[in-house]
């Protein structure tokens, strides 16, 4: 182990008794060996879940509870989804050209030629 984060405790937490005082930092700067989870929050009924960030947790239950504490403290949500980051497959940035650029000059695919009534929200 090359690097360590040293946590210092004060008051009545003697260092030798501190829970995780020598967390290995490792080469990748990883703060914890718990798996990473992606968090999705639905801010109110009827809306979609939106990606809000990620966190570390040992299992799905803990991930939901951590998400509750980390991402919904200011009443941001009514529902939480978590998914382990390793199950998310992403498009490759270097393929952006063939994936996305062909849509650029196809303006007729946008629903901009309709008049929306005022009562229709969330479009």
């Amino acid at each position, binding site marked *: 182990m090359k690097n360590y984060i040293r946590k210092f405790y004060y*008051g009545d937490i003697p260092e030798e008794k501190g829970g*995780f005082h020598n967390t290995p930092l490792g080469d990748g700067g990883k703060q914890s060996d718990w798996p990473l989870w992606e968090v999705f929050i639905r801010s109110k009924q009827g809306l979609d879940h939106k990606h809000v960030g990620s966190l570390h947790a040992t299992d799905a239950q803990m991930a939901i509870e951590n998400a509750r504490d980390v991402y919904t403290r200011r009443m941001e949500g009514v529902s939480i989804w978590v998914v382990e980051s390793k199950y998310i497959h992403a498009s490759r940035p270097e393929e952006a050209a063939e994936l996305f650029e062909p849509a650029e000059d196809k303006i007729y695919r946008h629903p901009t030629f309709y008049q929306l009534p005022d009562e229709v929200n969330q479009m």
Partner: protein
Amino acid sequence: MNQSLIDYTLHLADNSLILGQRNSEWCGHGPVLEQDIAITNISLDLIGQARHFYQYAASLIGNGATEDSLAYLRKEREFKNCLLVEQPNVDWAQTILRQFFFSQYQHLLLQELQNSKDEQLAAIAEKSLKEVTYHLRWSSEWVIRLGDGTEESHQRMLNAIDELWRYTGEIFEPVSYERQSANEKIGVDVSKLKEPWENKVKDVFTEATLLFPVKTFMQTGGKEGKHTENLGYILTELQYMQRAYPGCEW
């Protein structure tokens, strides 16, 4: 003026304040970021409960008393919190176990207190119960996770039980203001909570592969102002600003 109601309300307030203060010592020092936020959230919930109780007590006392004067200007012997909540954090296991013991008690207490004849206490109980339900769930899962975890985490839970068990008996032995309040249907008869509390703790301990402790000598006195030496140190830090700079605001 109903002295037993005042004392009873202060007892409930002091319990929450002191445990909130203890948990807040983890702020910036939690084992991982997510748990640091979790324990300090619980801290804030507890201090919020304490404020409600102090505000009510201050209105009963009158005479210029405020929530701040009750929290910052009373002496050690005037605090009526139980001994459990003033015990040191030591490590994550002991912090978790202390929270679990207390939340389990609070969960039972507040359900009953919702039916109090005193509308104010009933309302505070109803509001706090939602928070406490989460504290209980969170701490129960941690007791199971650590107890049924690695050899080290299991050993740390055993040490924590050894250290804290002796402070759990006091909670269920009513003192005079509790008896008086219970008779007036204002407070809760805590002696009736002992059995359900033990059963719930047994359930969680079984799942956590921890043995339920045998009967042992129980420390008492906190609820009547006779504290362990820990409380003095907590108050020194908690009350420092108001003692050093009386009336200071920011």
